[in-house]
């Protein structure tokens, strides 16, 4: 039976051609760093699959988002696990994609003729960060709300069109219901479509140009290695299994954070972004007053443009890393800078909660002055004890 089914398809489709394509030998000396791309692809699929399940229960409105995420975590069977995989998976994706990018830089694999593969890759990295940015508004907790307020304001500092961009992102003047549906739509429809088109292109280019292998490979070694299928794919699968075990363990043992419900007036909340945006958060501290735009716009844009154009700026022949002192120095310094900024950002002191003059709730103007429904000033509860507002 199985044979007959196989024969049916075999006689109608060029299946063996497809398999032969996958069997093309890779260059010699492929090491495990070459599995990072497959690991990224796996994580992307994992995000799509877990995301599709979260979407069954998630409700993108300020009234329901927070409770729906709570519901997923506390009541849906396996919900906490699926959400954990999605949450830690997104962090893992950022790390794996970044490491993949680094290995491509250090092996000089972006050089001709692979410029297009590289450029699509840079865009994919940005899209992954875009997933993170749009994703963490969704739980509608304090972190979600404030990271989005600040994130959109950052976009708002773009010269001339900043305000326009910020309003389009928010769908209005403030982060609210329209913002949430926008971010949800970007996160679950626009970006996934974009990502799958880009990944398709990326993989097509990878196959079309063939793996660049190690820079020290001699020309005759470029075809002399193991086939992609099944030898390399097996190694990839092992790496993916290790990754999956780590993620599953994280999903089981590390609770996914969910802070208090978003509160636009909370007096004691110190906004901090997701860890992979801490470097930017920290960078912004150094540019004061009119220089603000350097941190919010000039440096990030320059970095992206430089990354995109890297293969055209560095056109020297591919040689092993030890013969590329400049590349090594620039890369190490950049990584060092990003890591340092991230650590500083993570450590940046929270404000001690200062005392503040305040009046008792009973004296609060809201109790007397306001009968009108539509404008109710109120002291919030955190103000009630005199001289304490935490």
């Amino acid at each position: 039976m199985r044979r007959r089914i196989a024969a049916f398809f075999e006689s109608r489709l060029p299946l063996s051609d497809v398999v032969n394509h996958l069997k093309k030998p890779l260059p010699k000396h492929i090491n495990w760093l070459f599995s990072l791309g497959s690991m990224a692809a796996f994580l992307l699929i994992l995000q799509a699959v877990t995301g599709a399940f979260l979407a069954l229960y998630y409700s993108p409105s300020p009234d329901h988002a927070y409770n729906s995420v709570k519901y997923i975590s506390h009541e849906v069977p396996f919900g906490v696990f699926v959400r954990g995989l999605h949450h830690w998976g997104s962090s893992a994706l950022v790390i794996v994609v970044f490491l993949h990018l680094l290995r491509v830089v250090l092996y000089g694999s972006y050089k001709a003729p692979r410029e297009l593969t590289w450029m699509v890759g840079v865009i994919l990295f940005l899209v992954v960060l875009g997933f993170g940015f749009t994703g963490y508004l969704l739980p509608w907790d304090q972190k979600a709300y404030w990271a989005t307020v600040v994130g959109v304001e950052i976009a708002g500092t773009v010269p001339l069109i900043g305000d326009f961009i910020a309003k389009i992102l928010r769908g209005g003047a403030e982060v609210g219901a329209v913002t949430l549906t926008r971010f949800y739509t970007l996160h679950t429809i626009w970006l996934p479509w974009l990502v799958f088109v880009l990944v398709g292109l990326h993989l097509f280019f990878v196959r079309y140009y063939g793996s660049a292998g190690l820079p020290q490979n001699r020309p005759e070694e470029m075809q002399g290695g193991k086939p992609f299928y099944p030898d390399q794919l097996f190694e990839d699968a092992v790496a993916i299994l290790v990754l999956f075990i780590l993620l599953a363990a994280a999903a089981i043992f590390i609770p996914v954070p969910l802070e208090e419900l978003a509160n636009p007036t909370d007096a004691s909340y110190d906004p901090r972004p997701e860890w992979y945006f801490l470097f930017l958060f920290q960078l912004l501290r150094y540019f004061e007053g009119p220089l603000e735009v350097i941190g919010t716009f000039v440096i990030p844009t320059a970095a992206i443009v430089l990354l995109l154009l890297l293969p055209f700026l560095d056109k020297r022949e591919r040689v092993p890393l030890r013969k590329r002192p400049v590349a090594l120095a620039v890369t190490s310094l950049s990584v060092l800078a990003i890591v340092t900024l991230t650590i500083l950002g993570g450590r940046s002191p929270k404000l001690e909660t200062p005392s503040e003059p305040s009046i008792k709730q009973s004296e609060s103007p809201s109790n007397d002055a306001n009968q009108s429904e539509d404008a109710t000033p109120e002291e919030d509860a955190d103000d009630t004890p005199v001289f304490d507002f935490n």
Partner: protein
Amino acid sequence: MTSETHFEQSKRRTFFKSGIAFISGVISLAMAVPLIGAAIAPAFKKGQKKWVDLGLVELLKGARHKKINYTFQAKDGWVQATRERSVYVTDEGGGRFVVFSRVCTHLGCLVRWDEKKRHYHCPCHGGIFDETGNVIAGPPPRPLERPSVKVENGILYVREV
């Protein structure tokens, strides 16, 4: 058919190619205008301004950097939303009040008044503003926003945008 010359055939194909490009162009354009228009529409919407009352002047007498949270109704897309705002109010005497928005002019976090150090500071990137709202340290590019205020019938109102 067979009598068609090579020249005629290539002319026809040129026409087909332009035809395909033209049709794709027309459909793309016809779709682009409404789709993009709908997507970016919120950027052109003007907010309505209105006065919101903060409370009885009597109760705010002598207020120094007093935090007041208030709410008002505004349309947020299809939602009649309750907007929440937070300001600091200082009584300048003679029925004059200074109201500072708590929104940091850097990137929008909420500043807090520090009674001991006598300044406003921002929990995000370390912006500090003095008692009069001027920047004394950190990245904020402008002084704290001061929405217009008015006193009417013994009630302090603040202008919302």
